[in-house]
């Protein structure tokens, strides 16, 4: 008995010590908390590593600032650059920096920082930018001049939307190194880094010297809550103010809950099924009819109703309908009989084993029904959900075989999306077609907007004709907003999926 008593005492002491050490979770005034659906990755603290997806901007809009960036009502709003000009021959771009802007550590933002940020950039637009830029000059501390090797009509789009124009402090990065920077990032954005607990939360505090205006909310917390039902419960309880990615039946529940607001936001995130083996003559996917069968086999409207309450738009393209140079393709409406017929014509009357269907785990709610529809048509695939950062890394490194559920919500235009996902050499391109590649190169130097538009339309038509992908939809992100929030920032920047600009988010006055 003595032993048992001793054991109990030890357990109680340990329990008391352990509970005593736990931090208090009381929400201070002026704090806005987000329940985010994914684990935040430190790679997103550094603009130089911005991949071709929208997620890093969830952090970039808070910590950092760009020369030019999409803002409410203006997709190319002046940021750290108060103005810019392009030479008539399209070979020189000159930016004039805003005066008096400082980083969080008090150092001024200078032309040297802009040059340094560009030179260390290795994100999604690394290749086209490095291949096109001849020199970057700093005639004085408030002016930056970028010289191109040849005219490139999309230079500003690529420079602005893929992270390269987001500025980091040169002196600080050189002092702490790349890894040190990710541990304690310093930027020129509206919020300063306070702490980051991997897998738990990112805490930010208002930078009251932010040039645009001092933020309204003192403290922002981005908290990772992986389970969707728990995110909604936390929102209902008031533990968080905004919950991202609430879908299906839970979104219905959110809509019915008094005091909470359902925020559907049709952004610029398109999803599609990518056939990685279509260039392999031995693969069934090499046959266009098989790819077409897969496209006909998916009931997009039913998935849309079930998952996003019908808010997503079925646009039949990987390019968002709001993008410049968008071309509207005709669709492949759900037709399981036609899908079976096409498979039979292609020599697969009993279907075939198509291996894995890789998808971002955060979007497996779309992947699951797509896989079910494919299996129902006889295209036997197995869902392989992978956490976001690893999914995009594997996608970019061409590690996946079979089918990939592609997706991107990145800013840009039709050319940027084609560059990343369709044309040869793109970050996520497993293979390409010579005619598309030729047209893509042609449009890249075409200065006449009309002719360029025609070329980009032709490329999109070819993507459709070849069934290079089976587009799913233009996604509507559904978020929940709690009663304390006056301005969530969701949907304020056209096409952007998350809250921004953070200096505009507001809590209701008490």
């Amino acid at each position, binding site marked *: 008995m003595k032993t048992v008593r001793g054991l109990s005492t030890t357990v109680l002491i340990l329990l008391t010590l352990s509970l005593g050490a736990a931090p*208090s979770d009381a929400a201070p005034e002026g704090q806005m908390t987000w329940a985010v659906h994914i684990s935040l990755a430190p790679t997103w603290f550094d603009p130089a590593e911005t991949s071709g997806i929208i997620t890093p901007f969830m952090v970039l809009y808070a910590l950092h600032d760009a020369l030019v960036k999409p803002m409410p009502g203006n997709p190319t709003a002046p940021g750290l650059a108060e103005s810019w000009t392009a030479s008539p021959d399209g070979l020189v771009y000159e930016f004039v920096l805003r005066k008096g802007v400082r980083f969080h550590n008090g150092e001024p933002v200078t032309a040297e920082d802009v040059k340094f940020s560009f030179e260390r950039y290795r994100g999604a637009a690394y290749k086209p930018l490095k291949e096109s830029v001849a020199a970057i000059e700093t005639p004085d501390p408030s002016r930056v001049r970028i010289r191109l090797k040849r005219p490139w009509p999309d230079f500003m789009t690529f420079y602005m939307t893929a992270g390269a124009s987001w500025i980091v402090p040169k002196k600080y990065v050189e002092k702490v190194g790349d890894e040190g920077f990710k541990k304690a990032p310093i930027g020129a954005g509206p919020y300063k880094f306070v702490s980051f607990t991997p897998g738990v939360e990112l805490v930010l505090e208002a930078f009251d010297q932010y040039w645009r205006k001092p933020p309204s909310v003192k403290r922002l917390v981005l908290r990772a809550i992986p*389970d969707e039902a*728990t995110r909604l419960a936390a929102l209902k309880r008031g533990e968080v103010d905004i919950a991202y990615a609430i879908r299906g039946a839970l979104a219905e529940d959110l809509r019915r809950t008094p005091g909470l607001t359902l925020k559907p936001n049709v952004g610029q995130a398109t999803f599609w099924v990518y056939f990685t083996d279509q260039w392999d003559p031995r693969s069934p996917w090499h046959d266009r009819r098989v790819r077409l069968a897969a496209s006909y086999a998916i009931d997009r409207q039913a998935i849309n109703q079930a998952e996003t309450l019908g808010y997503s738009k079925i646009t039949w393209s990987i390019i968002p309908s709001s993008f410049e140079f968008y071309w509207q393709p005709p669709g492949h409406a759900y037709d399981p009989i036609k899908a079976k017929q096409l498979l039979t014509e292609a020599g697969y009357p009993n279907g075939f084993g198509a291996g894995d269907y890789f998808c971002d785990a955060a979007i497996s709610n779309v992947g699951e029904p797509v896989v079910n529809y494919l299996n129902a048509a006889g295209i036997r695939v197995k869902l392989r959900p992978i*956490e976001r950062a690893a999914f995009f890394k594997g996608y970019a490194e061409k590690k996946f075989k079979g089918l990939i559920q592609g997706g991107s919500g990145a800013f840009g235009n039709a050319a940027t999306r084609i560059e990343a996902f369709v044309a040869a050499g793109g970050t996520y391109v497993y293979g390409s077609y010579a005619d598309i590649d030729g047209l893509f190169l042609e449009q890249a130097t075409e200065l006449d907007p009309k002719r360029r538009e025609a070329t980009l339309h032709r490329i999109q038509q070819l993507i459709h004709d070849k069934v290079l992908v089976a587009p799913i939809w233009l996604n509507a992100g559904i978020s929940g907003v709690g009663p304390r929030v006056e301005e969530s920032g969701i949907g304020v920047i056209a096409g952007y999926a998350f809250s921004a600009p953070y200096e505009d988010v507001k809590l209701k006055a008490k």
Partner: protein
Amino acid sequence: MWRFLVGRVLQTLLSLLVVVSIVFFLTRLSGNPIHLLLDVNATERDQEILTHHLGLDRPLPVQYGLYVKNVALGDFGNSILTRRPVTEHIWERLSATVELGLVAMVMSVLIGVPLGVYSAVRRGSLLDSGARIFAVLGQSMPTFWLGLMLILFFGVILGVLPAGGRGGITHLILPAFTLGYFTSAAILRLTRSAMLEVLGSDYIKFARLKGLHEQVVLWKHGLKNALLPVVTFAVMLFVQFLGGAVVTETVFAWPGLGRLILESITTRDYPIVQAGVLVLSALYLTGNLLVDVLYSYLNPRIRRARA
């Protein structure tokens, strides 16, 4: 006794070495870590530099020797994603897991043992039937479903407990109950059957004949002997809680070790996966060792036999 103890410690160390070796070779089989560490746009030169820096250009036995040495010194390297030392990640999460595991274990014991005792004493009664239903429910309900139902009822409908996250004691109640309910049911059944066996033994009859108070017979003479398998089970249970609470940790957004390992598997942060597996194995083996020692200590017959 000492010979037994030294033997068990050596066995434990040997088992750990086997685990370290398995982890090392399995990781090498799963691909070149350089491809995971480097950026998409890295050049061949970058790969060469990093390969040399990490010592991956050395012969495999040399790499293995270095790995074992580093592990022995507690150096598990840095996380691929955060570049922070892996030990920092493990410690951060281990404390949360230990906290949750301890409370869950205490809850399991506090619920399971008294119910098990009374269920055995009042065999066939309404209380016994109720306790058995409780046990069947506990062992058949999926953890994630129970967790979500508890969040819905106590968090959303009643609004008395938080839905998730790590904070004060209120944050612990729901995840600890979710984690502990399944095992409290198992403890209940174990205590009940052990008590039924003990209560039929001669020394209990003798104690009653001596005129001892029933509560003394039950709690002092009966439970003391019936507790032996329960204590063993509870210690092993705690060790299992440390690595096996992934579902509970995910539902309640509890930043524990199980969730860290799961997240690291999905992000292919292998240094953390390796270290996590090693730490859990070490804890499991240490738990086993402790149970053996405790068993010998509590049961003189075993001690004498081993001596």
